[in-house]
């Protein structure tokens, strides 16, 4: 079915009250903004961006620690491109600025490239900034194990990897959480399988649809969610069957659990969540940047930094938990712009604020006054 037909089908649904749906995937955020889906939907249907953009959920305390590490002359940081402009607790201070001050920061496309970088620079310590969810975690683990197998000793990973389920549980536990259905991230589901999202309807009676990334995929998922709500039949549906099976990718899951263990970690906007962070198992501590540089990246070091930081007016935390829309942040489009971002949601192209700004519609301008 094409987009127009799906939109008509959605408009024809008998909705009585306003409905809030949430996606939790940076690629969905971008696809929704780019295709203008929000403007095609009936006014009663609100789409929110949840904690699905990897750099957006990274807390300022971790960015501060990374910035400090970047200044060491013996360290090369290898990172995905969108980390470079994420500010820490001091506005304007980011890896791009540190690079201008002499820090060695290399953008890589894959953790495998970061291992290569370590091979080419044996006299330096190469630290890969491992952000992402279940989609990136298996590859990060596999690349790290390759480094270990090949005797590349100057390679470590700062694992800020996270899992989706604990974050969704934390979101649903918030008093003011108003979302009535989840658009589940297709590529996370590719790894963890349909079964990874079964807890939503089973434990929380929350409608859930696994969605692909074309406009049609997303619209079809929205139609399914709304239909579930109208019929009061919350269930898990898979709208992305071409890439998502019931059990998921078992080889990738195996790699993830062999290498990592789930520990408490901090999320921007959500605070500390038990068993939501993927950290290296003790037998792989030689690959763990937190163990290699405990004075900067260790938990204790970050706790001290956190207590010393000043919180700016940035409301990224409220944006990624669906409390406000990007345009409701007082900094949005004024002090905080893609060229000079204050918060991570405006930095990453997958961030809710950057997507809202780039494809801004008249409504957002009006909301923003």
């Amino acid at each position, binding site marked *: 079915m094409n987009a127009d037909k799906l939109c008509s089908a959605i408009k024809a649904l008998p909705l009585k009250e306003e409905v809030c749906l949430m996606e939790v995937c940076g690629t969905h955020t971008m696809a929704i903004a780019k295709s203008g889906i929000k403007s095609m939907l009936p006014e009663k249907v609100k789409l929110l961006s949840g904690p699905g953009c990897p750099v957006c959920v990274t807390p300022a305390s971790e960015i501060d620690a990374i910035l400090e590490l970047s200044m060491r002359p013996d360290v090369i940081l290898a990172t995905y491109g969108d980390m470079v402009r994420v500010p820490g607790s001091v506005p304007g201070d980011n890896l791009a600025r540190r690079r201008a001050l002499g820090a060695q920061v290399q953008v890589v496309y894959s*953790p495998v490239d970061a291992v290569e970088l370590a091979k080419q620079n044996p006299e330096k310590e190469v630290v890969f900034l491992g952000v992402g969810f279940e989609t990136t975690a298996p*590859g990060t683990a*596999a690349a790290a194990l390759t480094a270990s197998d090949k005797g590349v000793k100057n390679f470590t990973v700062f694992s800020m990897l996270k899992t989706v389920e604990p974050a969704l549980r934390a979101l649903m536990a918030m008093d003011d959480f108003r979302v009535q259905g989840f658009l589940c991230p297709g590529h996370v589901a590719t790894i963890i399988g349909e079964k990874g999202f079964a807890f939503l309807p089973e434990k929380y009676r929350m409608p859930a649809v696994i969605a692909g990334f074309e406009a049609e995929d997303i619209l079809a998922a929205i139609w399914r969610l709304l239909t579930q709500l109208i019929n009061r039949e919350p269930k898990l549906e898979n709208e992305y069957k071409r890439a998502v099976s019931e059990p998921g990718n078992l080889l990738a899951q195996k790699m993830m659990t062999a290498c990592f263990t789930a520990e408490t970690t901090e999320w921007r906007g959500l605070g500390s969540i038990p068993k939501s962070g993927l950290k290296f198992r003790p037998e792989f501590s030689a690959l763990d940047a937190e163990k290699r540089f405990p004075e900067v990246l260790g938990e204790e070091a970050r706790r001290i930094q956190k207590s010393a930081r000043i919180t700016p007016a940035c409301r990224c935390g409220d944006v990624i938990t669906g409390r406000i829309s990007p345009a409701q942040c007082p900094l949005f489009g004024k002090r905080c712009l893609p060229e000079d971002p204050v918060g991570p949601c405006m930095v990453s192209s997958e961030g809710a604020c950057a997507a809202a700004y780039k494809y801004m519609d008249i409504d957002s301008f009006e909301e923003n006054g």
Partner: protein
Amino acid sequence: MGMRRKIRIDFIENPRVGDYVIVHAGFAIERLPEKQALEDLESWEELEEAIYQEYGMQAARTE
């Protein structure tokens, strides 16, 4: 259209030459049925063509 890259196939069971896969950060994360893959490629080509028509060569390349 597209790009040439070395990727890792650790997570694909019995990979074969000619398989279509979804790639994420340098790793194939799932095999895609051929029919689906060709449909996706076709729709991207249509998109590229549409962008080219509207904005000219420069934009089509940078998108």
